[in-house]
């Protein structure tokens, strides 16, 4: 007899950030259905539950309670930074392994971090990697950080400051810029007057695009190198910033749609077509990310055997290392977890946009050495 | 005494022949909020070129009558349930406020409702919204009737005195080129001198422009002195009508509206007793 196990996701299909959330949800759901179709888990049918929480923490909690208390889910796939942070103590209490779409390092920092995992490298690591790149290019360069006014945006600042100090870089300014930045003249002019040459963004694509457009108008694109972490770049940015996105450097762990030879991308395209997703959805890096989270959870269940409960899934997750690392091919490195290591695919690449807005890798897959120094995992 | 008797008062007033420019209110009933009946079959006529006054106690329905004529019942949640109002061949009771003004009937609302934040001149100009005639010439005409106003042209109307506000309100109505002017208690809260001035002006405009006027008043004294014909209203009904001079000599009107005893002397307020004499028409 087939056993039913719930694979639940709760995130913003509607509401703020739903443009990313909807694609992410599609990725989670499609991969889950695909796993059922492929009979990936012998004797088990996955109950793929996708819930909208509208980026509202109370809803996320409600969904979590429903998943765990009523549907007996052995794992939880989450979405937003705020929701994840708020749930940490509950996750610790219920021992439900959790993966979120937010790569905020605080999610896996103590306390209450035994069961929280990031699928890929954190924003902090993205940014430290960018700093390393800058340091290599220009010793003692002046760098400015522009971050989102939220825990999501602010968190990497501490690590970035530490890393910059060790790398001999000077952080001239840290500025918060939110979604309604209609005019960045003052900001950019100030950064210019400080002599900042590298501008690193931890934000969503919208505000970054506005900054790039203003920088272009002010003739600063040649003078300043703009860079950013996972949620700043990609198709989203190109769509918004147009040619102002040229030369933007982006740090991410995922493969891109255009890299059609990668197994993960091939799979994503195949599944996307199979479940009749729109072209835009399939192209989106968030679709791939959703699949990645889903794939990790399902792999962990598989490793848990015939009866995947939370403890089993947790064991399955932390068994993913060494020769048993899991590599679904969506990200540039294999997913490795252990009791101490809660970051899946640590590797990341830096990519740079060309004149048409296509991002091309300028580094190979790598880990940030500096990040481990400034943020040792406990 | 040719006073018509109450309740049978539909005989046409005797003094002038009916004209097509008479404003006639015929058996009108008005309810507010669909339930509160205020007018119970009111009929009256405003003869062309005359000043007609409408007297009555508080809450008798005088304002309501004016609203019914001028189409301003709707914003107060009132409506005409029965009867018709006609003027110059048009049935006013079927029209909305704007069209009533277009038909030439303009009301000056109770309580000097000037536009407080507009200047005096802008108040007057707002009266010219329907664009009859040349507003610049009209302004000059009104400044002639109310010579106090030109000096106040640019003053905010909210800061002018009561009498001045009443002049502004009347002037504003005149800007719309009315053929019938409905005045609701123009003397309310005005000093005696100003009351006299306002009524002098109304009389003058009536004479010089042939404007018909229906004036609602509590100050029966001055209203009857400055009108040709009068009606008395009580609890939503017309209870008495007649030539103004005749009304003024009616004993009930004398006692209840003019405050004069039967002997013809003004009785002192100091001697009022709580005992009330029944009105003869009730």
């Amino acid at each position, binding site marked *: 007899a087939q056993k039913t196990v719930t694979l639940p996701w709760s995130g913003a299909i509607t509401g703020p950030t739903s443009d990313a959330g909807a694609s992410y949800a599609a990725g989670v759901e499609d991969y889950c259905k695909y796993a059922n179709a492929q009979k990936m888990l012998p004797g088990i049918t996955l109950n793929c539950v996708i*819930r909208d929480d509208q980026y509202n923490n109370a809803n996320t909690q409600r969904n979590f309670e429903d998943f*765990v208390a009523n549907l007996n889910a052995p794992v939880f796939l989450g979405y937003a930074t705020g929701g994840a*942070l708020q749930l940490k103590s509950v996750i610790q209490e219920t021992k439900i392994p959790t993966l979120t779409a937010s790569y905020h390092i605080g999610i896996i920092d103590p306390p209450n971090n035994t069961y929280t995992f990031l699928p890929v490298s954190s924003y902090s690591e993205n940014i430290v990697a960018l700093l390393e790149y800058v340091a290599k290019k220009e010793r003692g360069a002046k760098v400015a950080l522009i971050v989102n006014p939220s825990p999501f945006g602010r968190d990497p600042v501490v690590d970035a400051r530490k890393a910059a100090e060790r790398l001999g870089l000077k952080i001239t300014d840290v500025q918060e810029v939110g979604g309604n930045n209609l005019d960045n003249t003052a900001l950019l002019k100030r950064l210019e007057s400080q002599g900042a040459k590298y501008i690193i963004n931890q934000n969503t694509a919208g505000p970054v695009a506005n900054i790039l457009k203003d920088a272009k108008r002010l003739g600063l694109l040649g003078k300043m190198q703009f860079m950013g972490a996972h949620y700043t770049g990609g198709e989203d940015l190109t769509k918004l910033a147009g040619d102002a996105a040229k030369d933007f450097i982006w740090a991410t762990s995922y493969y891109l749609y255009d890299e059609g030879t990668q197994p993960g991308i091939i799979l994503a395209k195949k599944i996307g077509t199979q479940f009749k997703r729109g072209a835009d959805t399939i192209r989106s890096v968030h679709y791939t990310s959703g699949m990645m989270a889903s794939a990790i959870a399902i792999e962990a269940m598989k490793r848990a055997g015939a009866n995947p409960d939370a403890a089993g899934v947790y064991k399955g997750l932390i068994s993913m290392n060494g020769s048993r690392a899991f590599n679904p091919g969506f990200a540039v490195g294999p997913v490795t977890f252990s009791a101490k290591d809660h970051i899946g695919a640590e590797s990341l690449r830096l990519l740079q946009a060309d004149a048409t807005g296509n991002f091309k890798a300028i580094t190979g897959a790598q880990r940030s050495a500096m990040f481990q120094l400034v943020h040792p995992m406990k | 005494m040719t006073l018509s008797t109450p309740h049978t008062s539909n005989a046409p007033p005797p003094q002038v022949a009916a004209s097509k420019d008479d404003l006639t209110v015929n058996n009108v009933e008005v309810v507010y909020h669909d339930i509160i009946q205020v007018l119970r079959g009111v009929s009256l006529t405003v003869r062309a070129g005359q000043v007609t006054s409408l007297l009555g106690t508080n809450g008798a329905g005088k304002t309501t009558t004016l609203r019914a004529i001028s189409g301003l019942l709707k914003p107060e949640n009132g409506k005409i349930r029965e009867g018709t109002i006609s003027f110059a061949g048009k049935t006013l009771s079927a029209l909305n406020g704007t069209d009533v003004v277009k038909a030439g009937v303009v009301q000056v609302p109770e309580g000097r409702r000037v536009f407080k934040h507009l200047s005096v001149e802008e108040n007057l100009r707002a009266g010219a919204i329907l664009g009859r005639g040349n507003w610049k010439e009209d302004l000059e005409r009104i400044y002639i009737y109310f010579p106090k106003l030109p000096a106040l042209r640019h003053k905010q109307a909210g800061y002018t005195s009561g009498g001045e506000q009443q002049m502004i309100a009347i002037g504003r109505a005149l800007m719309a080129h009315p053929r019938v002017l409905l005045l609701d208690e123009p003397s309310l809260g005005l000093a005696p001198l100003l009351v006299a001035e306002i009524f002098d002006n109304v009389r003058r405009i009536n004479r010089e422009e042939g404007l018909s006027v229906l004036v609602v008043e509590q100050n029966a004294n001055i209203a009857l002195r400055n009108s040709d014909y009068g009606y008395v209203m009580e609890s939503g009904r017309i209870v008495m009508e007649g030539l103004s001079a005749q009304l003024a000599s009616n004993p009930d009107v004398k006692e209840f509206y003019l405050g004069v005893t039967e002997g013809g002397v003004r009785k002192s307020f100091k001697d009022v007793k709580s005992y009330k004499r029944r009105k003869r028409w009730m």
Partner: protein
Amino acid sequence: MPASRFTQTGNYRTKYRQDQTIFATYAEQLSLIVLIGLLLLLPLILPKTMLRDVNMIMIYAVAVIGLNITTGYTGLINIGQAAFMGVGAYATALAATRLNLPFFIAIPMGGLAGALVGTFVGLPSLRLKYLYLAVATLAFQIIFEWGVGHTPLLAQGGAISLPQVQVFGVKATFFNHNFVWYYLILPVLVVMGLLWRNVLRTKHGRSLIAVRDNDRAAAAMGINPGTAKIMAFMIGSFYAGIAGGLFAYFQKAVVIEDYGLHISIQLLAMAIVGGLGSLPGSFLGPLFIVALDRVVGGTSNWIGSQNLFPAGVDAATALRPLSFGLAIVLFLMFEPRGLANWWRLSRLYFKKWPYKF
């Protein structure tokens, strides 16, 4: 006198003091007792996730009573009630985590913090009238959110986790969290409701209504309109603070998103739908809005899964703002007195039952 005091249909009072009673007839008193009894049993019969919703409704009801105090009864439009809730939540969180105070002290401290900040924010109401004050509260909401984001002590808006509580030896765990909190929130709500009901029959309550109706006349009655307005803000934000403290524990952590502008607007919507300036409305409004949200949530999940609409048309996302907005607009247009009016009418009906007139 009717045969039984429970079947009386009107009041037959002989003393002014009897006029002060909250419940007009004994039947009403009885039905309230029955209602409270039923409420005490509710967690036993309700599905688990619904219990959570009920808890939310009750917490929001506390905040909405507070909003009604400032906006409904005193007429000071407040677009920042969620920020006052936030003040309470953060104060509670600090009291619980930094001072290690137990919840039954930490939550009232949230209330006091709310009242304190509310009094301060209410100060402009001494000078401002009408919409201007509304805009000032809006500004407070925005300044609050920004301020939290810039305060490391408050985790810059990130999560501050609250400890689990223990009541009479029962520890609130993940599995009995809603259950335990139900029995903590319900009495708070009942008491807060009764307290306000009491105030309403006294000079303090009347003075607020007087200021709303006509503040100049209120001054002529010897009421200091300024004091009254500040008092309204103080009490209103005290309620918000208590609600915030409860919410902090209930959500197990404080994050800034729970106290944003959209929540303020949601609280206003609850007050309006319930019926402004009505105590029963303060319960019915949250009930309606939360229930609507659940129904719409379910529907939009379903729509989302059905692919009924062409690609790019996000009907699922559209449904929520559409229904929320329409609920507000339709209520205001067709039942401006809110659900409280339905409540009143149905009470009237039962009071006169079996006679219909």
